[in-house]
Structure formats: structure tokens, C-alpha cells
């Protein structure tokens, strides 16, 4: 569909759509969307990574599909149409996860299903895909999914490193540290610390991006 346009596939505008969610309009720490899952799956890096990929796939394709359908759906029933499209995509993702990475899928438990109500997806469909062409919408979906993924990886890096002394399941803190009295901070594995880490990330991010500070 994009080949008919005069605009090249990766024009400056499209690149901006893809990269601005990484920092300036990050879905988690600037738009405050999709927090629930961002916090709950980040005690370990591996589930966080799988979750980030799943959300990116669902966001990109729901944006694409809704953008293709945007002229045919009456606006009164659009919410339920969106939910059906998103739910169908999430069921696909869930079945794929159960088939190929069963142990991670067990760890994620209800949070795969909760991708349906992840505000990033609904938010991007409502705010972007309903008013834009399919290709930019697709890029916007990938960009926002990746922006969400970056935050997930950062949070889970600190939580896993400080909480269990491992990264991606491999031990990184050597044994002699433990023998000299170092111990893991198990508070990092508990839910409240995830919130505090996000708070700190927001603090650091806004210190560098003064335009985002709340008045």
C-alpha cells in the first residue's frame, strides 16, 4: 500500500515516528501507559524480554489492522471492534508462547492476557492508527512497543542484578562476594520496588529533558 505513495518508506517523518517513543514520548515514563505489566513481569530479565516482544508484535499489528479498517468502522462501536481485534492477536501470541517457551509463559501467567487491556495498545490505536495510513501506524506501533521494551529491560536489569545476583538467569556476582558478607537484596524482587525504580527512572529522565517537567 505504501508503494503507491510518493513518500519513501523510511522518510525522515517515518523514522521520527519510530524513534521518538524511545525517549521523548516514551509510552511508559512520559505517556504513563501500560504500567501494570511493565512492573509486574520485571523481576527477571527473560520474562521481561518475552513480554516486550509480545507487546511490540500486538501493538504493531493492531495498529496496522485498525488503520486498514479505520474508514469502515462506525465510531460508536469502535471500542468493541478494537477489543476484538486486539484479543484475537493476543490469543495468537499466547498460543505461540505456550508452544515454544512454555516455562516463560507460565511465569507470565495472567499478564499475557492482560496485554488486551494494556493501555499502550488501545492508546496508540485511538490516538494514532484511527487517523493515519497503515505504514506509519505500523511503524508507530513498533516504536511504542520498543520504547516500552527498553524501560522493561532497564527495570528488570536492576531488579535481577540486585535482587538475585543474576542476569538472564546466569550468576554474575562472584561467590567470593557472598563469602565476604554480600547478600542479595530480596526487597528488589517484591512489587513495591518496581514502582520506586520507575519513579527514579522518571526523575533521571526528566532531569535531562527539562521540557517534560510537570508544571
Amino acid at each position: 500500500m505504501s508503494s503507491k505513495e510518493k513518500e519513501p518508506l523510511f522518510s525522515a517523518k517515518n523514522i521520527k515516528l519510530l524513534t521518538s517513543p524511545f525517549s521523548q514520548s516514551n509510552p511508559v515514563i512520559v505517556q504513563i501507559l501500560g504500567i501494570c505489566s511493565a512492573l509486574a513481569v520485571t523481576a527477571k530479565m527473560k520474562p521481561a524480554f518475552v513480554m516486550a516482544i509480545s507487546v511490540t508484535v500486538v501493538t504493531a499489528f493492531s495498529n496496522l489492522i485498525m488503520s486498514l479498517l479505520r474508514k469502515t468502522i462506525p465510531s460508536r462501536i469502535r471500542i468493541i471492534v478494537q477489543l476484538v481485534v486486539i484479543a484475537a492477536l493476543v490469543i495468537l501470541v499466547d498460543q505461540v508462547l505456550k508452544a515454544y517457551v512454555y516455562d516463560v509463559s507460565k511465569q507470565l501467567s495472567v499478564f499475557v492476557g492482560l496485554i488486551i487491556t494494556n493501555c499502550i495498545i488501545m492508546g496508540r490505536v485511538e490516538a494514532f492508527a484511527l487517523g493515519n495510513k497503515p505504514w506509519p501506524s505500523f511503524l508507530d506501533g513498533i516504536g511504542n512497543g520498543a520504547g516500552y521494551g527498553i524501560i522493561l529491560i532497564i527495570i528488570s536489569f536492576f531488579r535481577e542484578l540486585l535482587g538475585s545476583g543474576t542476569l538472564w538467569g546466569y550468576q554474575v556476582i562472584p561467590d567470593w562476594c557472598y563469602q565476604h558478607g554480600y547478600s542479595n537484596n530480596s526487597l528488589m524482587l517484591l512489587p513495591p520496588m518496581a514502582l520506586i525504580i520507575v519513579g527514579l527512572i522518571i526523575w533521571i529522565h526528566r532531569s535531562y529533558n527539562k521540557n517534560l517537567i510537570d508544571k
Partner: protein
Amino acid sequence: MESILNIFIKSIFIDNMVFAFFFGMCSYIAVSKSVKTAMGLGVAVTFVMAVTVPLNYLLNEFILLPGALSWISPSLASVDLSFLSFIVFIAVIASFVQLVEMAVEKFSPTLYNQLGIFLPLIAVNCAIMGGSLFMQERAYANIGEATAFGLGSGIGWWLAIVMMAAIREKITYSNVPAPLKGVGITFILTGLMGIAFMTFLGIQL
């Protein structure tokens, strides 16, 4: 009876939707600016949860679970529709929210105006979907337990958002570092409240 009371108390304080699972964080952060609106949204969420969780429990028990269709005819006992649960649950929630919205608009226009856009947004509040999914995962024994869980979780969420709104009303008078103002301090406060709520851990009735 004891188990129902236990589940009820547990879902309010120990497994609190916000502090233990971060469900419904988006609207929790966005709507907790004043106590009044927080109250309205809390009531609406509690009501929707107390109805949709038992409703989805019945659907799960009699249609979706492996072998659940055997009440129609024994030949359907091998059918497993559980992969459809996401789409069924969200459809029930979305249509119920639509129903509530129409009923409130018809019978109490003042309340409808107070709640404004928050009513339709309840459909995508993950606390409600999460309630139904947890109900399925934990496999409650009967509909009484499922109702107690739904009602308790709703009240827990209501409690959390009203407390947060009260704190945020006070904190506008404090000298918070500029980059931390607004959402940043809200996250840290929620984390601290979560640590406080952890003291309820291990309470058995």
C-alpha cells in the same frame, strides 16, 4: 462461609490489586488527582468487578473449561474452549460497561456527568480483566467465592485510589524536586504504600 470471608479480606488487603499486582495503574495514576473523582471511579470499578467476575466465573465453568460443555450432551465432554477465554471475558466486560453506562445515563444523569469519560474507560481498566483472569487461574470452588473475590478486589482498588488521591492533594503544598513532580513522586509514593501494605502479609482468618 469462613473461606468466603477469608477470600474477601485477603483480596482487599493482602492481594491488593494496586499494591501487589499493579492492576489498573493507568487510571490509578491519571485519576488520582482529586478525592472526589477518585471516589466516583472507585465505586464504578467496584460495581463492575463485583458483577463481571461471577458472570465470567459462570461462563468459564459451564462453557469454556475442558469438558464444561458436557451438561448439554455427554458427547461434548472432550471439547476444550479455554483458548477462547480472553475474548469471551473482554466481550463480557466491554458489553457490561456499555450497559452500565446506558443505565446510569438514563436513570441518574447527575452521576453520569460526574463520571464523564471514566465510565467507558473502565472497560480497558486492567484491574477488571485481571480480576477475571485471576479468578480463572485460581479456580475458585463456587460462585460465592468468586463473588467475594470480585467485590473484595474492587474495594481494594477503591481504597488504594482514594488514599492516593488524598496524599496527592496534600503533596501539592510540598516542595518536591522539579523533575520528580507529578507522576514521578506518585510512583515512589505508591511503592512506599505498597511496602506498608506488605505488613498485612500472612494474615489468616
